[in-house]
């Protein structure tokens, strides 16, 4: 084959992949209203995706808060600005680390299990069996999981930030002895509810869509073999993480470009 044809074939393949994913996403969105009517399915999935991720999110949030507070203290105490530690930890968590780290953990903890579950359903031909019974697997299996992921992600991100700030409080105020009043009041004067907290929630909402949609797509389109499921699970983590990081840059540039 000549090189030109190879280039053309690869580009077409890539575009076809994107188109396929886009149609899948549109189908998923179209199936959402039906799953809203049967909210019990969504609740069960929120339990599986959200509640079960709570421990790892809270533990990581606390750890990140501890470490950020310690490192920032060493850096800031040189300039006599140890009190603004709370502010820095707060802004870092609420704007960036909360949504991003939660999304990365979420892709690893919940995304992989979604991909594996749906991949095995497909490998065991359960999805085909559903179609045989005139049940749309997209609205019965995929849509509730998508909705649950999109609902859980912002909640987890908010908890991550809140727990991280409390962790910073424990290290800074209780262990190091930074003044408690200044710790909170500097935060309250500099952190804006809509600009910082609100945009953080918007970010985590977008990341929730990315992580869950990627995980479901990889599971749904997996090759029906053990290797295929393993490969799809790996790809979920890689694609979702890279997508989240890229999207984070775009969103940050849009949200915080004006001072």
């Amino acid at each position: 084959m000549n090189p030109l044809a190879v280039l053309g074939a690869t580009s077409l393949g890539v575009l076809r992949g994107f188109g396929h994913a886009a149609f899948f996403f549109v189908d998923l969105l179209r199936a959402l209203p039906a799953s809203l009517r049967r909210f019990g399915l969504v609740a069960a999935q929120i339990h599986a995706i959200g509640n079960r991720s709570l421990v790892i999110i809270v533990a990581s949030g606390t750890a990140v808060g501890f470490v950020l507070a310690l490192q920032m203290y060493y850096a800031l105490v040189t300039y006599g600005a140890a009190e603004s530690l709370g502010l820095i930890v707060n802004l870092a968590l609420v704007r960036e680390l909360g949504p991003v780290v939660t999304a990365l953990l979420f892709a690893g903890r919940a995304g992989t299990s979604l991909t594996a579950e749906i991949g095995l359903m497909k490998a065991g031909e359960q999805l085909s069996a559903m179609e045989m019974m005139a049940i749309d697997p997209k609205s019965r299996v995929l849509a509730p999981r998508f909705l649950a992921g999109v609902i859980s992600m912002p909640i987890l991100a908010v908890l991550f930030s809140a727990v991280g700030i409390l962790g910073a409080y424990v290290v800074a105020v209780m262990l190091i002895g930074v003044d408690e009043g200044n710790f909170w009041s500097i935060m309250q004067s500099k952190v804006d509810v809509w600009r910082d907290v609100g945009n953080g929630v918007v970010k985590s909402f977008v990341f929730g869509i990315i992580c869950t949609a990627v995980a479901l797509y990889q599971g749904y389109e997996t090759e029906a073999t053990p290797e295929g499921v393993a490969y799809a699970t790996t790809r979920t983590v890689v694609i979702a993480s890279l997508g989240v990081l890229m999207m984070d840059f775009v969103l940050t540039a849009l949200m915080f470009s004006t001072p």
Partner: protein
Amino acid sequence: MGKKSIETLVGLFVLLGMLGLVFLSLKAANLATFSSGDTYALQARFDNIGGLKARAPVRSAGVTVGRVTSITLDAQTYQGVVTMGIDRNLQFPRDTSAKILTAGLLGDQYVGLEPGADDKSLAAGDTIKQTQSAVVLENLIGQFVNSRAAEAGSVAAAPGGSGSKSKK
């Protein structure tokens, strides 16, 4: 696990999320400290606003009484027009003066209000007449350098001394 207990756990999860959001907005952000609803607008014109930004605090006697809502340039006088939202419960006399001050040496800039002695108070939309511009560090340094140069010049002009050396 029964359906009821799953629903309870999910409810608990969502409740935790709400508590987290309340904590972030009330304790760790500015929702509780200052709400923009109950304010009235005052204006002040400055020759130079320095590094003042929108949302900077307005303080009187060091107490935050409002925030800068917008900053524009008057096209006729080329002055900076600073609009401030002041807490509705506080009234200031008509001869109040406004200054742009800096918190600490290199800190953020804010508007300081010094109340005068007039019996009448400023109403919403009024303009504060007496203002003092921001101190710009470069101008200060320029003045300092100029005054040193003038001193050096007067020393050089005196008979003898080092001034004649440089002329060679």
